[in-house]
């Protein structure tokens, strides 16, 4: 868990199991924005991300008493969020391609200093975001979990229900697909295959 050592995390899990609402607040502060980012960039729809985020927190409350004592909260929460999105997607038969570029995902964040910076940052960001959105779901979630959220590949593999080796391959392919989508030149594309995971 970012910004918290393992002992503190275990203590927090213990308090959650005992039904301590203050422990819930700590976890909420740590993960609310991160989970929203993950869900928003996975679903490409702000309102869907908000709904799934709420459901993720309700699941935590419903299952808090039954958490294993050694639960890792980050992977647990991302697994729940990811599974909720997969269920949602199945139920709606939502195609990724329909959603690309639809949303006003772009807001907030740290404000660039000048109108020019704003335009450049916004343009670059939109381009990367659009490229991410055009990736197949499996690649997108791999990049989001490992590169953006900083989960270890083994943890991300567990979130996605695949083996660590499969996750490494998925990451490698995701990078190549993203580079191709962003029109990175050929030598750089070759180098992407060599980036360690």
């Amino acid at each position, binding site marked *: 868990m970012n910004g918290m050592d393992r002992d503190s995390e275990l203590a927090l899990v213990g308090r959650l199991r005992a039904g301590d609402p203050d422990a819930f*607040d700590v976890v909420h502060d740590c993960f609310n924005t991160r989970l929203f980012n993950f869900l928003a960039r996975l679903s490409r729809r702000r309102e869907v991300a908000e709904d799934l*985020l709420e459901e993720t927190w309700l699941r935590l*409350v419903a299952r808090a008493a039954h958490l294993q004592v050694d639960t890792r909260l980050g992977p647990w929460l991302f697994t729940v969020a990811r599974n909720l999105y997969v269920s949602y997607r199945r139920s709606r038969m939502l195609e990724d391609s329909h959603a690309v570029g639809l949303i006003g995902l772009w*807001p907030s*964040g740290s404000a660039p200093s000048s109108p020019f910076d704003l335009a450049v940052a916004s343009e670059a960001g939109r381009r990367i975001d659009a490229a991410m959105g055009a990736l197949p779901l499996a690649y997108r979630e791999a990049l989001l979990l490992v590169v953006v959220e900083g989960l270890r590949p083994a943890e991300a593999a567990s979130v996605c229900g695949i083996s660590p080796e499969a996750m490494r391959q998925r990451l490698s392919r995701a990078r190549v697909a993203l580079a191709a989508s962003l029109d990175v030149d050929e030598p*750089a594309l070759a180098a*992407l295959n060599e980036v360690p995971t």
Partner: protein
Amino acid sequence: MTPDDAADLLLRSVDQLPPLHPDERRSAQVRARCRAQMRRAPKPQPRLGPVLFTSLCVIYVSALVLDVLRLRGVL
């Protein structure tokens, strides 16, 4: 720019996408709702089932032993 630089830059650009923020009002509502549910949720109780089952077994076996001893005239 070397190929490694380009690859590095690409990953950093993904990592540095500006954070998206959930609606604050809704987040506060969800947090309050979850807190309320946690307060209402029954606190985990010591599990009585296994204790009860073991006690019944002990009573049954004791009664059985007493009966056997009585039949054999020991008691």
